[in-house]
C-alpha cells in the first residue's frame, strides 16, 4: 500500500521490473511494426500535411502512435481540430433574421 501511495505522489523510482515492462512494450512496438521511432515521426509529419488540406487542426496536440491490443498493432491518431473553428457559431445571415 505504501508503495502505491508513493507512486501516486510520484516519489518512488520505478522498480527494475517496471522498467523492464515499459522498455519491452516500447521495443516490441518497433519490432512488431518494423517502424522505427524516426520513421514514425516522419510519417506523422506527412499525415499532418494531408489532414491540413481539409481541416484546421491544432498541430501541437497531434499524437500518432502505435498501440498494442492483444496481439494486434493499431495505428492510433489523436488529431484535435482547432477549437475556435468547431465552436464558433455560424455567422448570422439575412435568411436567419427573416425567420419567425
Amino acid at each position, binding site marked *: 500500500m505504501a508503495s502505491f501511495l508513493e507512486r501516486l505522489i510520484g516519489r518512488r523510482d520505478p*522498480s*527494475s*521490473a*517496471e522498467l*523492464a*515492462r515499459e*522498455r*519491452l*512494450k516500447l*521495443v*516490441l512496438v518497433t*519490432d*512488431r511494426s518494423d517502424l522505427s521511432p524516426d520513421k514514425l515521426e516522419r510519417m506523422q509529419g506527412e499525415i499532418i500535411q494531408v489532414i491540413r488540406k481539409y481541416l484546421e487542426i491544432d498541430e501541437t496536440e497531434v499524437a500518432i502512435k502505435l498501440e*498494442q491490443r*492483444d*496481439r494486434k498493432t493499431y495505428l492510433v491518431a489523436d488529431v484535435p481540430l482547432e477549437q475556435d473553428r468547431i465552436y464558433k457559431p455560424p455567422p448570422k445571415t439575412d435568411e436567419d433574421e427573416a425567420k419567425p
Partner: protein
Amino acid sequence: MGARVITITSGKGGVGKTTATANLAVSLATLNKKVVCVDADIGLRNLDVVMGLENRIVYDLVDVVEGRCKLRQAMVKDKRVPDLYLLPAAQTRDKTAVSPQDMVALTDQLREDYDLILIDSPAGIEWGFRNALAPADEVIVITNPEVSAVRDADRIIGLIEAEERRIPVSLMINRVKPEMVRRGDMLSVNDVMEILSIRLLGVVPEDQEILISSNKGTPLTLEDHKTPAGEAFLNIARRVTGENVPLISLDQKGGVLRRLARMFGSSDST
C-alpha cells in the same frame, strides 16, 4: 490422424526448452501416454544427456532421413517409464542435413503408433526452427521473465502466427523467482502475459533441483520426491492431456491468486 505433434521452442537459447521437453515427455509417459520426443537440434544434441539416454544411442535422426537405418532402429526406449522413446539428433552434422519436409514425413510415420510427439526445437528463427515447426500441430513457446527472452518469444510467436496454417500457440514461463517478483526485480507472470497476450500453459519456478537432475540424467519428473519445478512440469503435462488443472501463480504482489493459493494450501507457483 493419431498423435499430436507439439513443438517446444523459444527464439532465445538457454531458456529451458530441452529441460521442458524431457520433463514433459516423462510426465506424459507416466500419465500413460505413448510418447516420442525428437531432438531437432542437429549438431548440438542435448536431449539425450538431459534424459540420461546418451549411452544407448546407435542411430540418429539424420541416419533415418538419409536412409541408413529404419526409424524404429534409431528410437531409444526409456526403460524407466512405460512408453517413452527418444529420437536423437545427429551430433556431427549440420542442420541443413534435414529439411522441413523430412520432419513432416518422419512424424507422419510415428503418428499412427503414438499419442504425443514432442519436438525439442533449436534456438533461433532459421533453419532448425523451421524444421521443428513444419510438422507441429501445436507449439509451446518457452520464455523466462527477462527482457531479452520475452522479446525473442514475441518474435517467435509473430513468426508462428504469420504461417499460413493456423497453429495454436501457448506459453510456458520458466525460471520464475517469486521472491524477486515480490521485490519488484523480476517481471511477473501477469507482466509477461500482458505483453505477449497468448494462452498461458504454465509457470515453472527456478529450482536448483533442475541442475542436479541434469547432472544425473534423471528428469525431475521421474523422481519420487516432489520438487517445485517437477510438480509444475507435471501440472503442465496434465494440462496438455486436456485435464483442467487450475493455474496458481504465487508471484503476484499480494494478488488474488496468491491469497487463494494460500487458502487452498498450495505451496508454490505452477
